């Protein structure tokens, strides 16, 4: 199972959609997309994750990176994450620095 990842930037909002499995072998692709969003000076980062089936620790590391890379002033949204993934985000305390929602409203 691989990872499909896409990035769109609309009006200062970077939207990344993740589908499949995020692990050590492809976390760097995710990281590259975050860097792209940061370079475009996005004011908001929205991660659509309803199609993401599995996330290893390497994926979580990228979340940590995303918050630090985008800077404290940029809100990072996690949209529609599945239960298992949400659990992990919660236990590691990442939920305090991310905005977690079922659906994204512009």
């Amino acid at each position, binding site marked *: 199972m691989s990872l499909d990842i896409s990035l769109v930037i609309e009006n200062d909002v970077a939207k990344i959609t993740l589908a499949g499995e995020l*692990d*050590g*072998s492809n*976390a760097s692709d995710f990281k590259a997309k975050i860097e792209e969003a940061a370079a475009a000076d996005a004011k908001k980062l929205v991660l659509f994750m309803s199609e993401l089936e599995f996330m*290893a*620790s*390497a994926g*979580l*590391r990228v979340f*940590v*990176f995303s*918050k*630090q890379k985008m800077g*404290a002033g940029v809100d990072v949204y996690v949209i529609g994450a599945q239960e298992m993934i949400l*659990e*992990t985000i*919660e*236990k*590691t*305390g*990442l939920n*305090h*620095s991310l905005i977690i929602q079922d659906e994204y409203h512009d």
Partner: protein
Amino acid sequence: MQRIDIHPTHTHGNFKLRRGNPSPFGATFVPGGVNFSIFSSYATSCTLVLFEKHAPKPFGEIPFPDEFRIGNVYSMIVFDLDYENLEYGYRMDGPNNFQEGHWFDQNKILLDPYAKIIGGRDAWGVTPDWDDIYHHRARLAFDDFDWEDDRPLEIPPEDQIIYEMHVRSFTKHHSSGIKESHRGTFAGIRDKIPYLKELGVNAIELMPIFEFDEFENSRPNPQTGETLYNYWGYSTVGFFAPKAGYAATGRFGMQVDEIKALVKELHKNDIEIILDVVFNHTAEGNERGPTISFRGIDNKTYYMLTPEGYYYNFSGCGNTLNCNNPIVRGIVLDCLRYWASEYHIDGFRFDLASILGRDPWGAPLANPPLLETLAFDPILAKCKLIAEAWDAGGLYQVGSFPAYGRWGEWNGKYRDSIRKFIKGDGTVGDMAQRLQGSPDLYAPAGRAPATSINFITAHDGFTLMDTVSYDGKHNEANGENNNDGSNDNDSWNCGWEGETDNPHINALRHRQIKNAIALLLVSQGVPMILMGDEMGRTKYGNNNTYCHDNDLNWLNWDLLKKNNDLFQFTKNCIAFRKVHPVLRNTWHFQNRDYVGSGYADITWHGTKAWGADWSTISKTLAFMLCGKHAKGGTVEDNYIYVAMNVYWESLWFELPQLPPSLKWHVFANTGAPFPEDSWTVGSEPVLGDQSGLLLGDRSIVILVGK
């Protein structure tokens, strides 16, 4: 321009290598690769062994080229590793001679003593594959946690109120009411921070959280057949790695982040975190124990050995770490610096700390270099250092631990004195010392009251409820014929051994518990409360539950309802202490009036005001603190009066007179029925008769003059 110092210079098969950096020890990320560094004084060669996570066999073995060794340190950079999926170990070759103290064996794969994450026991209690060639596997840790503006809190020592707890025991019981997947974990503690806030403690002390093996010496319980574990974890496998089985995210290898998230949240709530650390021995046990790490890397350096090559056993656990060997001293210092800087830990409590003051042959040192090093270390400068000032080899240093102005002590004498006094066996002279922060032990050497960590109960020994419910220990479930655990419990069952329906006995037990809590929270020094004592936790008379993963250790949160009076009383006493600086003095009392208030900083009374009965058979004592002397006269506080009647009948206590315009108010009376046994701060009722009061049998009264 590409840096050229990050290019490989050597190859081994498909592996690209470069000479490494000898320091820091352990595995460290460098551009494009990982720097591996390990030392051994006696090895003749060393091989790096690489595994994919959980793989039964290694995917590569790389001998360190001779030119990569500097001194006794083998270091090497390996490029292009999939570090998210990597486990590593070492093989060491060298002499193998028991009497000489050398255990080198190339067939063993050894854990890096500096491993920051250890795999192999990723989830608690999952039976390991005993055929695994490498049980405890070093992994790489990342230091990318977002601390934001967090830093250790640096609460003044005398202001601390410590709560000693076991990570798994705190929330494992279903009554904890948290998500099942969080029970018994660091995440579970985070869920319970609101409870800790409500109770009012401002420091938690965690029993060992360095990676240990719960299966060390695991065996079936002779009574029930259930597995007995190395449950408390006083047996370290790796000093730099957190216990994966305590993390809800251990399966993902995210334990580092989970603890850091806990620390950050505790700090946000003004609660410090202290770690109970075990440097006196390791999980390798005696000569019959497993070879995990130290023994195969440098046995003679790490352990104290007899001339015949056997292990000295000052720890009671099979071996003794050679803490005053300069190399071992280095690893202890590296470890504490790492936890203080990387995890923002606020303090450390050292298990059997007297061992740290013994020389390589076991003799106590006058000026132990390790204790001195830790006391003066710049990175640890603001960390609390707390010694359990005794060891299993008979060294007892309460009051004489080499402190260098920095070390606090678990005051075992405080525990014994309070227990004896409450049941009517103590002396008032001894009590007076304990209530003042044990100046008899600490003042002559210029050590502050906060040197004394005052506790009546701790993980070792009875809970507070069991102290008033059992005359003797009941440790049969440990499978050692009731021979283990201390026989000196200074306990009294109040008339019946164990649980009872008798309302009079139960009322007396609750009163005795409140007496203990009241004294603990009005004593100078630092109070430490054992997890669950605030709700009457019992271990059914077992005073050494080191091996039980069940209700003997798990806190039953339903007790909060059952013993709500104990919880409310404890909560009120903690709030009272926090609001009255006169209970938290920085220096010892001078027994004189040095601010011109007309009252000495502390005065002693009894059934007669100004006339304490100091005889050895006395069962009464009272003292008054002058609020104008709070914190050495630097802050203004109320007057506080505490009266103790441990006699079996009620007695009239005459009260010392307050300055005009002030009145005595009742904060606590353990002889009164709940909820009149204690009051919230500010709601204390005025005492009807300001000249004196009747104290019930075995009761304590605390008044506040304002």
